[in-house]
């Protein structure tokens, strides 16, 4: 196996959880798909499983931590469910741009909205995606239709009691005029 072939395989094993589990549980079958010979398979299996898993997990946790920082409202809504949702999302998405964590956060919001698990989660995801795009892409104007009044929870310290959230029809607006930024609800 050339260095290029090895790196192609490693990049997939590091980032694709399903492939990694398949390889570690059935290395000969999976290895054959990559034209690995017995020696190469044995090398990977004998030396690498623990390290491979640890490295891959550390990549995941890095992505998760950055997403939690960028999506504080979604984190508050999902609470301990943020991680399993993000893990499911991360298994099928690999950011490609220089702003990889920003790309991850936006794509995760789209993922949550597509899942249609609850109107609350979808609304929080839509609101955060709109906010992120406004600031991250330095837009002049962003408008987000809301089903819930997220106004009170803009403060990062405020915890959410979902039973007390008011269902509403409003628009959240972000407006940049010169260096001044305004955020209001109508």
């Amino acid at each position: 196996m050339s260095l290029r072939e090895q790196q192609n395989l490693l990049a997939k094993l590091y980032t694709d959880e399903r492939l990694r589990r398949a390889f570690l549980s059935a290395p000969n079958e999976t290895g054959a798909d990559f034209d690995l010979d017995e020696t190469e398979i044995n090398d990977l299996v004998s030396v690498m499983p623990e390290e491979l898993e640890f490295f891959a997990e550390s990549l995941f946790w890095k992505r998760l931590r950055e997403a939690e920082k960028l999506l504080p409202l979604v984190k508050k809504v999902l609470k301990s469910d943020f991680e399993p949702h993000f893990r499911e999302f991360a298994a099928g998405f690999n950011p490609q741009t220089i702003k990889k964590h920003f790309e991850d956060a936006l794509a995760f919001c789209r993922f949550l909205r597509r899942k249609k698990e609850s109107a609350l989660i979808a609304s929080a995801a839509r609101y955060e995606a709109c906010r992120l795009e406004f600031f991250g892409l330095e837009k002049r104007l962003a408008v987000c239709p809301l089903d819930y009044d997220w106004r009170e929870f803009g403060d990062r310290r405020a915890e959410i009691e979902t039973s007390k959230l008011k269902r509403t029809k409003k628009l959240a607006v972000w407006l940049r005029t010169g260096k001044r930024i305004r955020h209001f609800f109508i």
Partner: protein
Amino acid sequence: MTKIRNPKSKFPNCAGVGLGYRERFRADVFLHREKIDFLEITADHYLDAGAEKFEELKLLKDHFALVPHALDLSLGSAEGVDEVYLDKLARLIELVDPPWFSDHLCFTRSGGVKIGHLAPVPYTREAIRVFVRNIEKVKKRINAPLILENITYLVRFTSSEMTESEFIGRILEETDCGLLLDVTNLYINARNFGFDWRRFLDEIPLERVVQLHFVGSHRYGERLVDAHADRTEDEIWLVYEEVCRRADVRGAILERDENFPPFAEILNELETARRLMNSTQSRQVSIV
């Protein structure tokens, strides 16, 4: 121990002690400018910069010496360097005009997959050729001197043909690059894999050390990891001090990314780094 100094070095005299710039520190770095000799900027944060980020870069450049630290040249990629990324980095470096810039001895992408982290390569002759080829391409595009950073690794390759120190030394010699010696990474690897970091220092070309990185290590089960989230501990200060004693270090950067303490603690760490660096400046011998 006699410090090795190379008077033919293309790197400027000591830049001093500084920190990796993080946006949350913006007010503090300006308030305490006199205690920060230079800043290391994460190059990737400015490559597709909008107007606000560009303004920030200009502001920093007007008040600090800046050294760009790149994350994604992927110098160890056998498929070659990403031309688009290289071009963007080159434009940033032209703008900043730093004394040097840095990236890592690793690969970060292959076969259309971006790993999102610094992945190790096997220490082989083939890998050396890959690094040399990629670095030559970078040097043709970017005039500023390139220095290369050692990384932590959790993955070991049975196909390696030499030690890490020999591997690093050969790449540095063949490319005439300087070394960004991350003393925390060295300490973590030494602890995790049971080798003597002093022996590692004996084996690398210390005259090529230009800059250091330091920060605390993080315990994760039985291992240490480079989380960049902890205060520099005494064991790492020992490594730092030893390197300063042996090598003509131009600059040292505190690389804190997470779990931020009050800025006074950051300044205390910089002060420790400065004191240790200055206290080892006394004996110098030129190499010919």
